[in-house]
């Protein structure tokens, strides 16, 4: 019975993240537009874009191979599964026992690997520049993320995100210096991994330091739709991770019943709104940096994660 309920929660979670991801992206865009005193596109604009792309033909470059055609499906699937592993409104996700948070980082790595290969597949200079820079960013962001993961896992005594969230919610963790460092590190990684503003600009693909948008320049139609949805999912995933680990209040613990789940969903929506608002304000307030300044930025994130882990190693008596 408990398994069936957990499966149901897991399934609801998969549907929920897929449904919410474009809305969240739309909310961030709208907020940014308001901050700039513009009207901005409607909230549901991302859904419209995706649907429009799905209806369009795919224009495939002559030199594209099957890697280029398979990559969008794999990128979408791995990102979706990864997003379904993060507790949003309730813990006790079934998949969380199949893949812990290290596996989650590696799943995102798989998606990135396929996408970078697809960028090289057509054989244009834009795709190459995107892939090369994406891998540069990842080569520093992924270790930083893993260091943050180490910090959380050492504190909670578990690498499963559900257990970490329950630990953060239930026990008296208190204000820990390591956690503060880890939070800053994780936010920096999230900004870099989602191609947000100081690192990359999600709104354009005609800029000299473009990364993500250059890599997917050759995509069109349903392939592009899948990649866009995967990008929305990834953004939602990072915000959800930050929310469930550092602000775990209101998440329903496994087996608490439907009322708690509904309450959890409501709180989750509030957290998303807060996260989107902060992201929009941050992006509006800051200027983009040169691509060769990015390693400094991510190196700082890596050092923060490392310091957080080191502090825990030194202070833990166990």
């Amino acid at each position, binding site marked *: 019975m408990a398994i069936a309920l957990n499966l149901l929660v897991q399934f609801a979670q998969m549907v929920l993240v897929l449904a919410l991801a474009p809305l969240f992206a739309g909310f961030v865009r709208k907020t940014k537009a308001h901050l700039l005193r513009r009207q901005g596109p409607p909230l549901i604009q991302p859904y419209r874009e995706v649907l429009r792309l799905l209806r369009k033909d795919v224009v495939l470059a002559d030199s594209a191979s099957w890697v280029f055609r398979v990559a969008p499906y794999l990128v979408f699937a791995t990102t979706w599964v990864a997003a379904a592993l993060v507790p949003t409104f309730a813990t006790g996700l079934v*998949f969380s026992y199949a893949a812990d948070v290290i596996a989650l980082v590696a799943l995102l790595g798989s998606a990135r690997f396929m996408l970078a290969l697809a960028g090289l597949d057509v054989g244009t200079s834009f795709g*190459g520049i995107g892939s090369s820079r994406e891998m540069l960013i990842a080569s520093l962001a992924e270790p930083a993320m893993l260091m943050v993961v180490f910090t959380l896992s050492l504190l909670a005594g578990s690498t499963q995100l559900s257990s970490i969230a329950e630990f953060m919610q239930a026990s008296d963790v208190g204000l820990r210096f390591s956690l503060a460092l880890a939070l800053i590190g994780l936010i920096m990684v999230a900004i870099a991994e989602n191609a947000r503003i100081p690192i990359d600009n999600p709104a354009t693909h005609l800029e000299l330091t473009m990364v993500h948008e250059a890599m997917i320049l050759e995509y069109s139609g349903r392939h592009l739709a899948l990649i866009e949805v995967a990008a929305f999912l990834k953004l939602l995933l990072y915000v959800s991770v930050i929310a469930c680990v550092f602000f775990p209040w209101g998440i329903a613990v496994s087996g608490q019943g439907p009322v708690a789940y509904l309450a959890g969903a409501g709180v989750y929506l509030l957290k998303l709104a807060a996260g989107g608002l902060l992201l929009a304000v941050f992006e509006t307030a800051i200027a983009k940096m040169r691509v060769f300044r990015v390693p400094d930025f991510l190196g700082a994130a890596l050092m923060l994660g*490392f310091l957080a882990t080191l502090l825990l190693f030194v202070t833990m008596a166990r």
Partner: protein
Amino acid sequence: MALTGLLWCVGALLAVSVAAIPVARLRSASTLVYGATLSVSALALAIAIACLLAGGPLLGALTLPVGLPWLGAHFRVDALAAFFLIVVNLGAAGASLYGIGYGRHEEAPGRVLPFFPAFLAGMNLVVLADDAFTFLFTWEFMSLASWALVMSHHRRPGNAAAGYLYLIMASFGTLALLLAFGLLAGPAGGYAFEAIRAAPPAAGVAAAVLVLALIGAGSKAGLVPLHVWLPLAHPAAPSHVSALMSGVMTKVAVYGVVRIVFDLLGVPTWWAGALVALLGGVTAVMGVLHALMEHDLKRLLAYHTVENIGIIFIGLGLALAFAANGMRPAAALALTAALFHVFNHSVFKSLLFFGSGAVLTSTGLRDMEQLGGLIHRMPLTAFAFLVGSAAISALPPFNGFVSEWLTFQAILVSPALPQWLLKFLVPAIGALLALSAALAAACFVKAFGVTFLGRPRSDAARSAREVDRWSVATMFVLAAVCLVAGILPGYFIDALAPVTRSLAGARMPPQGALDWLTIVPVAQSRSSYNGLLLFLIIAFAAGLGAEAIHRWASGALRRSAAWDCGFPDASPATQYTAGSFSQPIRRVFGSVVFRAREEVHIPPPGDLRAAEMHVRLRDVLWDAFYVPITRVVGYVADRFNKVQFLSIRAYLTLVFGALVALLMVLAVWQ
């Protein structure tokens, strides 16, 4: 009797080696020889698997009346040896199967065929040896056989120098091992491993033996800074031999370290663990950075072996640190991670070298800057190479991820270690491991992307053909092993239980009987991973996405020229190359680690000369360690050169002086 069977297999390999000398002239020589080695290795593999599954600390011991007259040649199979025999013979069987097809293109089969079975026999014998003399003799036999294979194309530029460097490093390594065994045997001269185990050395001697073993076996495995010969010598050999050297011989070297440090030295000390793990971490990052700077496909793979050896040594070092503190389950976890990575790396590195061999056969090129677009011409090779790349980049659901995940889990239990140095060191090693894993993914995006994707950069790449079916079959078998070990890791971990029980005194909890074949290294509440379920869920999600799109969305597809932001008809030369792909990483890491300098020469307007860009990389370790050594050796040799041109009186005086000096020494000694 398993040991007898294995020794007969080795005998058969040696017989094939001798028989190959006359046979090599025949047209069907490669089929005959590789067919024979394939069947013998497959038999040995079956015996070794049976041995490991039977478990137990000792599965057979035997003394043959050869070798030193008062010692004989001791042979023994235990769980550790059985595991490494599986690695050796799986790699050997793969290389033989691949060789049936690949060997036909060999220009000088007489230089390869006799040494190949001898090399296989040597690797088997090192693992079976149970006394210091047999171990060193077979170790040297293995080195020389592989050296002969490296030199099989000795007229190609660079190969002779690579062989020379290999010979020097191998002799140096054997010297270190010789001293290590000398110290282990003690003044009584008990060279049998049984005698050494019965009388473990004192702490000071043990420390010296540890350092010597790390130098001796580490130089064969490619530990930084002893790795310099490896990226030169491994690619120089024919590709199936490169696969054996990189995938298997380095593992025999790991076996040497494990046998000496875990088995013969007795109870380890914690600083040994710190030293080994730190060396591993540095090796991992240096190896992958070197690999990223490399544009020669086979050399890239060889440098990447250095990285993976580093990951294995991280696991071994953690296991030593845990064992020294009596944390047996944790030691078993770290050791399992290291040994599982030994197996995994031997599989995917062989696969990748076979892929590069296929590229070499069909295009004649190893330089990635001239390749490209091979996925259209060689689809099967490309697919297998892609699987290998994903596995070596530690991406789920393949096997490389599982062993790295286990290593991370071992790092996460290490705050319990009491020593302060370890508390500071282990997080740093974790960071190095994470960094090397991320850089490995970048490296293989480059290796696969530049070689197989994009558009062809040369006529040779444009007219490439798929390779023969033997080669393709070998690559697919190994790719399947990568997937199976990735989604069913529980069985592999369980099979390692007898090894860890004999070396670390504990085993990981049994995994095979868990629900859904999940693996749980410590406790369910702590961490778990299920490759099978993950694989199924991803396949389900991708299938669902594809089905939904093809049912409700547009399925139309139009071929057209690449968009490229409207830039028309670009030549393939405008693509990103291997050099440009790694340029950002070179800027970030290379300016320190390699002292990378870029020089750009752009001719003035009106001048029609081509613009040029030169990148200069320096190997800092080469400058720091090897250049001074060669300088000192050269200086001393120059000084001693004078002794060659003395008069007869001077020589007689020298001889007399030497005699007097020796007698004085003897007198003082007495």
